[in-house]
């Protein structure tokens, strides 16, 4: 397996979907079955490669493994440098898994205007971008993959998205939701990544390298200290904070998640948001450790605002999908709070929080999509009694919502609990007052989270079905949905009961990161 460990494993994981996209493009549009099978085959192959990476990974060692470093653009001294460590491995496997599930779910749930071929090509392109971002160890390569996810998601929202019309108060005109959401998503993210790129180039100008490993070593040695570091951190912060999204950069998120087709929402919530928080852990913290300590209180405050704001906003929603979207703002707030503590506990919390949020919220968006597919509405006022009409689907919704509100024993618990635990005792030198206050407010946030999730369940699942549904037949969870959802449901329980699935990978790496960067 030497060839697999020396770069081929990761390259296959990243580029098999891209090859798949090219193959699917060559198949005539009329042969729909073949198109679907080819797309699924390549996604499965990529997933298999990522699982194999997990088996070849040595969990006892921190640092990057299965890496390769090839000359790519020697004119700017940028290399094709990829590798995984304990932080990126869970994210990599999650991204390839969600891609497979998204394709299975799509099998017979095609949003208008149909066209499976184009839809699958976009999913596969997205898969390459997502997996690539998690393994890139070169800033230029990271930037390319980070941007690569934008185009497919833009088209996915813009073509297959929600066609209801909304009135834009500022521009005083009416547009279809999908068009507004698609361009808003793109402009926000592009704005962030333009500044992120400036930050990368500035790092290269000072450090003479784009290599994340080399730059991290320089960062430790204090090469980027002072006001230079401050401005670079600010530039990177804009890029990652928009993507996470942190309050107040979050406004694209509810629009994009609500307007996107089901699979688009799932991919957005499960993976795309993590690119931002992953960027903080992979790039900002190790390369600019001093500035990370200066910025940590500010990040913690914004994170707490996001937790409270997200929860309160959820309580004001009438649209089920929009409620789930806002819940992401709150959950990513916990992730960012964990990162801001700069401790082992906090960063471990962030990574498991990212994985858990991916699994849980991905599942919630699947369920919301399937309900919309059947009821043709997402208005919670019109739903209700879902548990009676579709007992299995309703049961799954109840289960997943419980996981989302952080019930102990399910996946959502660890990220929230440990983030709060971490902020009780942040890195030495960080203001205890700020972080302990953040902990208290965050704890209130968990109560609010429970509140809106139960409120949603009560409106959607419990009670008597609305009169307008009487006499209608609803088919409960179908075969494809079972296939797509079972892994997520199993994952929710497994991570909840046995968090070592994630911690086993992250522990050593996070410990090494905190020790080398912050001496903690």
């Amino acid at each position, binding site marked *: 397996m030497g060839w697999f460990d020396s770069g081929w494993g990761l390259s296959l994981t990243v580029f098999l979907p891209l090859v798949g996209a090219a193959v699917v493009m060559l198949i005539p549009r009329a042969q729909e079955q073949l198109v679907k099978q080819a797309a699924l085959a390549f996604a499965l192959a990529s997933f298999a490669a990522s699982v194999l990476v997990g088996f070849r990974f040595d969990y006892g060692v921190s640092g990057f493994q299965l890496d390769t470093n090839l*000359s*790519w*653009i*020697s*004119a*700017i001294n940028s290399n094709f440098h990829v590798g995984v460590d304990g932080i990126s491995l869970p994210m990599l496997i999650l991204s390839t898994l969600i891609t497979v599930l998204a394709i299975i779910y799509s099998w017979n749930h095609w949003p208008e*205007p149909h066209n499976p071929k*184009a839809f699958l090509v976009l999913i596969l392109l997205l898969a390459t971008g997502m997996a690539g971002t998690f393994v890139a160890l070169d800033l*230029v390569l990271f*930037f*390319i993959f980070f*941007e*690569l996810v*934008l*185009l497919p998601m*833009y*088209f996915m929202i*813009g*073509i297959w998205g929600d066609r209801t019309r909304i009135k834009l108060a500022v521009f005083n005109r009416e547009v279809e939701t*999908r*068009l507004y959401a*698609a*361009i808003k998503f*793109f*402009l926000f993210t*592009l*704005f962030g990544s*333009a*500044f992120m*790129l*400036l930050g990368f*180039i*500035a790092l*290269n*100008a*000072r450090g003479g390298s784009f290599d994340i490993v080399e730059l991290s070593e320089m960062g430790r040695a204090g090469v980027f200290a002072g006001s*230079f570091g401050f*401005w670079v951190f600010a530039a990177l912060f804009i890029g990652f904070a928009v993507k996470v999204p942190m309050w107040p950069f979050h406004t694209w998120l509810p629009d994009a998640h609500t307007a996107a087709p089901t699979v688009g929402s799932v991919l957005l919530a499960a993976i795309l948001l993590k690119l931002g928080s992953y960027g903080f852990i992979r790039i900002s913290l190790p390369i600019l450790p001093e500035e990370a300590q200066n910025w940590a209180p500010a990040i913690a405050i914004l994170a707490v605002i996001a937790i409270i704001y997200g929860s309160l906003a959820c309580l004001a929603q009438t649209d089920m999908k929009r409620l789930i979207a806002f819940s992401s703002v709150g959950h990513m707030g916990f992730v960012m709070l964990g990162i801001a503590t700069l401790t082992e506990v906090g960063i471990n919390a962030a990574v498991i929080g990212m994985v858990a949020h991916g699994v849980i919220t991905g599942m919630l968006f699947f369920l919301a999509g399937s309900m919309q597919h059947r009821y043709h509405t997402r208005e919670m006022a019109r739903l209700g009694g879902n548990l009676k009409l579709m007992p299995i689907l309703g049961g799954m919704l109840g289960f997943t919502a419980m996981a989302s509100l952080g019930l102990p024993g399910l996946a959502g618990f660890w990220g929230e609990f440990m983030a709060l635990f971490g902020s009780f005792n942040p890195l030495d030198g960080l203001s205890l007052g700020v972080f302990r206050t953040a902990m208290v407010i965050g704890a209130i946030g968990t109560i609010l989270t429970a509140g809106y999730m139960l409120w949603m369940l009560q409106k959607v699942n419990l009670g008597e079905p609305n009169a307008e549904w009487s006499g209608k037949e609803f088919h409960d969870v179908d075969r494809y949905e079972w296939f797509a959802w079972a892994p997520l449901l199993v994952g929710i329980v497994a991570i909840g009961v046995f968090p070592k699935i994630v911690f086993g990978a992250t522990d050593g790496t996070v410990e090494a990161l905190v020790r080398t960067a912050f001496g903690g």
Partner: protein
Amino acid sequence: MIDYHALAPELILGGTLVVVLVLDVLPVPKWYTAVAGLTGLVAAAVPLLSLALLESDDRFMFGDSYVVDDFALVLKGLFIVTGFIALLLSVSYVESDRYYQGEFYFLLLSSVLGAVVMASARDLITIFIGLELVSAPGFLLAGWRKGDARSNEAALKYFVIGVLSAAILAFGMSLVYGVTGEVTFSGIAAASVGLSDEPVMILAVLFVLGGFGFKVAAVPFHFWAPDTYEGAPTPVAAYLSVGSKAAGFVGLLTMCYLAFSGLRDIWGPAIWILAALSMTIGNLIALRQTNVIRLLGYSSIAHGGFILVPFAMAASFDAIELGDAFSATVTYLLIYAFMNMGAFAVAMAIARKVGSVEMDQWSGLFTYAPGLATLQAVFFFSLAGIPPFAGWFAKFVMFRAVLGDSGNTWGVVLAVIAAINAVVAFFYYAKIIKASWMDPVPESVATQDAKRIELAPTLGLAMGITAIAVVAVGILPQLLAFFGDAARAIALGG
């Protein structure tokens, strides 16, 4: 002793001109002239390759006023490729209009010859003649559609502005000669040391910048460009926005770096202002356009601003950073040439299908012509600088050059302006994409007819070449490394 090998590209192009004219009066099919022109351009590229690969020495001719070095070869290659693609685009266009085909190709090739001369010109007179040889055929080409009032307007505007800019340029050059008593760039550079406080010299430099400013359509010298592009035949607009513009940039680059190398304190800040204005104003006006060709006109003004960005900090650059800046400019020009030619080509193809260049008529293109819609997305997203298409690398090297002097506030400010402009620019490119991918087909477009309209193979070839270049360079920018390095050498030596 004349170095025929070094002059071979120019000689071959000159010969091709004669052949085209002669074929035009002979009783042979008109497409012979187009084939002759295309063959001539390919033939002219052969000595370029042999000079680049076989010879490592720079060649100085005619008392150092004509130099063939790697930098000149790269740009000659750029002009020849641009001319080749413009000719490909013209074939189907001119044929369908049944206007003087032979003359059209003759004039286009003349303009290319002028640009090729400019790349080697290292004195005031040669560069002026080269520039006029680029521009004069352009005036005629812009007015090719004689029956169309817009085309007449385009030609007249272009002509008046062209003459005005030539006068300004000539005036500036005469001042330079008056102060230094030299015509060669190396002579001027030597004689102008320490003159950066001399009012006449400041005036001279600013006039020269203004003269070239019109050629490259930098704000505030830009207002002719959108009208001219809209009215001129589309292949001519494509050529003007790439070939002729690049020729202007070459003039600007060589004058600034070689002749005014000691006067960076004068032209550096002036170019900072031109760059900031061109990006911002070009983009803001482009936001409001509904006609795709006009939009491309304003977008090319904005791109002109991006191309100028690396120069802007020249005053504070050291030799290595100057090399980076120079190489960034040339890299941007090369990438811009392919993506903008491609954008015009795809606009022509779509216009042929739907019969309009108004954005709302392009709605729903994806549903009945997915291939064209995909190509369109490739070129417009490349112009917007979205990976994995070549445009990202152009923007990347531009940012890298201006931030090379990191810590300099003015450089950072310009980089931030450029970054915000890159986001703004995305909005209007996305507007076109939105129309053709996400909007429903308008009733005025008969999709069945549109499907049946066949595209000329030459147009397909032009789109194919540019698309492959845009994707390949986007994924492997190293393909351009040789060209960037070739450009770097001149800034280090100069």
